[in-house]
């Protein structure tokens, strides 16, 4: 009855050369996979006891690289090379997503929200509304408050695709989150978009 003193012995084996775990039980496969991945991350650690450091101060190297990629993406965007910008943001997103798992999730959230937002803008510049809408949604999912641009971008993309009702709903949701926010100009833009969609819906043209 006392579960704290017993455990189920699982059929595990370990490869002496690679030190990778394996199990004859297929239901454990995903867990074992995750564990092996985590193990490799552990081996790459250079902390004294090879245990993950506390999440607060992260390794700055990766942040610098991500920033660099974002800067070059921004530069490409300004030059009008939108596909290149998308590629750069793509690299940066991958870089941010591959941070060691135990690093501060708040930071990852912030970075990804920013990068997805930029990528959405780059898609929109190429009139790829579907891609833009999805990226902007991810950005908002990462960061709901203080992300007026993300809200606006998805609203705009939905509008461009002629999905007026969805756009209206989305913008209303965005305004709820952002109205009190500090970015007055952004909120104004969002409100303008909302009014436009509203008018369109009222006119019954869609």
């Amino acid at each position, binding site marked *: *009855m006392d579960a*704290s003193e017993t*455990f*189920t*012995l*699982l059929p*595990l084996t*370990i*490869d*002496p*050369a690679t*030190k990778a*775990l394996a199990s004859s039980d297929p239901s*454990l496969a995903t*867990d*074992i996979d*995750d*564990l092996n991945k*985590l*193990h490799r991350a*552990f*081996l790459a650690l250079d902390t*004294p*006891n*090879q*245990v*993950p450091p*506390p*999440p607060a101060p992260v390794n700055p190297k990766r942040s610098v690289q991500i920033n660099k990629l974002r800067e070059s993406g921004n530069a490409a965007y300004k030059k*009008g090379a*939108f596909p290149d910008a998308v590629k750069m943001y793509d690299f940066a997103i991958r870089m941010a997503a591959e*941070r060691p*798992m*135990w*690093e*501060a*999730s708040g930071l*990852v959230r912030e970075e*990804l929200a920013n990068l997805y937002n930029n990528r959405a803008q780059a898609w*929109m*510049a*190429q*009139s790829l*509304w*579907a*891609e833009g*809408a*999805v990226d902007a*949604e*991810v950005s908002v*999912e*990462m960061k709901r408050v203080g992300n007026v641009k993300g809200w606006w971008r998805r609203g*705009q993309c939905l509008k*461009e*695709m*002629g999905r007026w009702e969805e756009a209206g709903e989305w913008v209303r949701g965005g305004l709820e989150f952002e109205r009190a926010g500090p970015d007055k100009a952004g909120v104004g833009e969002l409100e303008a978009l909302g009014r*436009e969609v509203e*008018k*369109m819906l009222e006119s019954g*043209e869609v």
Partner: protein
Amino acid sequence: MDNGTNSTNGTFEGFQTPPAAPKSFWFGLLLPTLYLTILIGSLYTFSSLYRKRLLQKAEKLEPWFPPHKQRDIYLSLLHLDPSEASDSADGEKKLSKVPDSILKAALLKRAVEDIQRIVQLRSSKQALQTLLQRGSVGDELWQRFLRAEKETEEEVKDVVTEANAFAPNWGQTIFQSANEINQNFILKQRTAEIQAKLESEKAWWESKRAGIQSDFMKELEEEDKPVGKPVEAGKKKSGSNDDDAVLVDAGGPAQAQGANGVKKRKSKKGLGA
């Protein structure tokens, strides 16, 4: 004499009773003892049976959580003797024991699972208490919950001691790390969910755009000769705000593909009118 007779009577009777007197004495003692033994015995059997049944019931209560797989993996690893398990692979290279790094990784995974459980327990506690007060759920559920809470608490303590055994003071940060891992995991899951919609969204938009374009072309052909003017007028009437939209859009991100964008917008108007 009365006394005498009495006494003789008594002695006479007494003569007969003495064999009876010890009998009745033992008999008299027997009854209460019997009574007491039966009483105590029945009480004892009742209480022991009752307790056994309670225990059985508690045992039968379904645990709140499914078996703790990560804990099982970790403990299995601790008990794994690699020199025994892997001798079939290749003889010369044997591990004397499971490397610490794997154990640490397994322990961290165990901590992550614990965090998930703690989050689940915390979020359901309030609701469960309210439901219990209202009588919407049985006491059994609450018992299960309390047991799960206790078990998780013990589990956490266990993980902390294990972590401290691997590296000094790791116990203080292992759950912080586990929490971040959990958060990051949720983050990735959400991103993947949204990104998974991309393909279908793209396909939908492609087909819609193609539809709009072909409609527009058809309309253009039809409009060309017979009803050019009226349609045009109708468009203007209803489309005043739509024209605004075109202006806003054109100022925005649509510079890159001017012709296409304009076509699309016109086609939308065509559909509307």
